């Protein structure tokens, strides 16, 4: 009986959270198109988010390319299909592995950063101070950050994909003596419109999810430093889960339109 009560309570708070997140999201859309536009802060955030994540995303991309090629090579050799390696790596990186791994890395780096920053601003009354100055803190802090992640994540994913392909080429060049031109010709031949466009579209959704959840948890952070820690932790966990849900939905929709 007690267990049932606890479950009911948890379920209720889950739905309340979903409701609050929906209101937060609708407020984001409403404030985005309302003047004045905080262009300077938006550009500043784009620079901060893009620049600070570039190295991490590049290293991750390079390792993905290396590992994927090294792990797949023996299996393809067994079937005598090693010549398919560039096509296989290209499609899997561009369609799936590049976007989702980069988004997960950014959820940890960017999402937690936004949540911790806004959370500490909330507990130290900096957000209240903005509000009493007659400045809309939601527009200044939330809208700019969410837009910045939404715009920057696709760019980071393109960079990560490119570097991952270079990593893959490196293995193929060393182990299979494949030339640069041959490798990338095969990659580009294999990639179709239905591989590139849906992956790019879903990366915008990934970015919006990272920005929105990070901002939502930080902006509504509970009092105290423990509240900031909790908000940051929940932001990363929830975003990671949501990224997989968005990915599943994206694949489902892509399958309808492009017959994967």
């Amino acid at each position, binding site marked *: 009986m007690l267990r049932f009560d606890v479950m009911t309570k948890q379920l209720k708070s889950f739905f309340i959270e979903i409701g609050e997140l929906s209101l937060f999201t609708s407020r984001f859309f409403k404030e985005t198109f309302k003047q004045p536009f905080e262009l300077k802060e938006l550009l500043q955030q784009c620079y901060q988010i893009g620049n600070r994540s570039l190295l991490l995303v590049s290293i991750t991309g390079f390792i993905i390319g290396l590992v994927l090629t090294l792990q797949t090579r023996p299996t393809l050799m067994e079937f005598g299909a090693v010549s398919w390696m560039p096509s296989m790596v290209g499609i899997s990186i561009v369609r799936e592995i590049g976007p989702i791994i980069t988004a997960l890395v950014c959820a940890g780096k960017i999402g937690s950063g936004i949540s911790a920053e806004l959370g*500490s*601003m909330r507990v*130290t*009354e*900096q957000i*209240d*101070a*903005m*509000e*009493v*100055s*007659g*400045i*809309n803190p939601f527009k200044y802090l939330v809208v700019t950050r969410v837009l910045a992640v939404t715009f920057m994540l696709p760019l980071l994913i393109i960079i990560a994909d490119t570097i991952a392909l270079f990593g893959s080429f490196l293995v193929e060049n060393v182990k299979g003596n494949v030339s640069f031109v041959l490798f990338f010709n095969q990659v580009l031949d294999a990639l179709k419109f239905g591989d590139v466009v849906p992956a790019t579209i879903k990366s915008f959704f990934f970015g919006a999810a990272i920005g929105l959840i990070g901002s939502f948890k930080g902006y509504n952070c509970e009092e105290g430093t423990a509240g900031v820690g909790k908000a940051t932790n929940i932001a990363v966990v929830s975003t990671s889960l949501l990224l997989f849900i968005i990915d599943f939905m994206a694949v489902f929709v892509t399958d309808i339109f492009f017959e994967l």
Partner: protein
Amino acid sequence: MSSTHDKKVVLEIKDLYKAFGDNQVLNGFNMQLYEGENLVIMGRSGSGKSVMIKCLVGLMEADKGIISVMHHDITTLNQEALDVLRADIGFLFQGSALYDSMTVRENLEFPLRGHTKKNGKLIDTEKLVVEALENVGLANTIDMMPSELSGGMKRRVALARTLILQPKIILYDEPTSGLDPITAKEIIILMQDIQKKYNTSSLIITHDVDCARVISDRMILLIDGIDYAAGTFKELSNSKDPKIKAFFK
């Protein structure tokens, strides 16, 4: 006292109620702040002083009651009208609330973003920032980050930021809390100087008896969610009521 009551009321609270779940924090609180007056509101920790002051600027929504700032009931104002009214109210936060990621200059420039013109003329932001910092004796910190400042300096910079829009009313939330006695005294003197220079009306929330003694023209004791007693520092400190006496021991 009589001279105070001849003056115009700039801020008024009638029957303010606010509860958090079962905890009734404000239970029909009333107060009036007159033009040019320093009104101190004293109460124990958790008595609802900060809740009351946050309701005053619309940071928190009251459950019931009328909050009138310069004859505008803020509970009925829309966001735009509230933002315009807020330009006339300065708020000094307990923890200073300086923006960590901005320099002192940027902190002071920030409230001016929505107020680029005064009487149809473009305002000189640089001049205003320097003047506000000179008022608090910290002109040399203009390019420093808040993390480089001491607690007392942060409070002064926050006061300069509060002053930059030249508000008619200043709300102080525990202005001396967390400061050593000498720095606290400096802040109190600064508050008095500002009041004299700009003829602002000040509402000071504190539990610091020394601060209340030096700065108050009038005091209200917030006990059990109501305005339990009001009067000058002398009147209240001589009271025989044990609940009032407990504050001045």
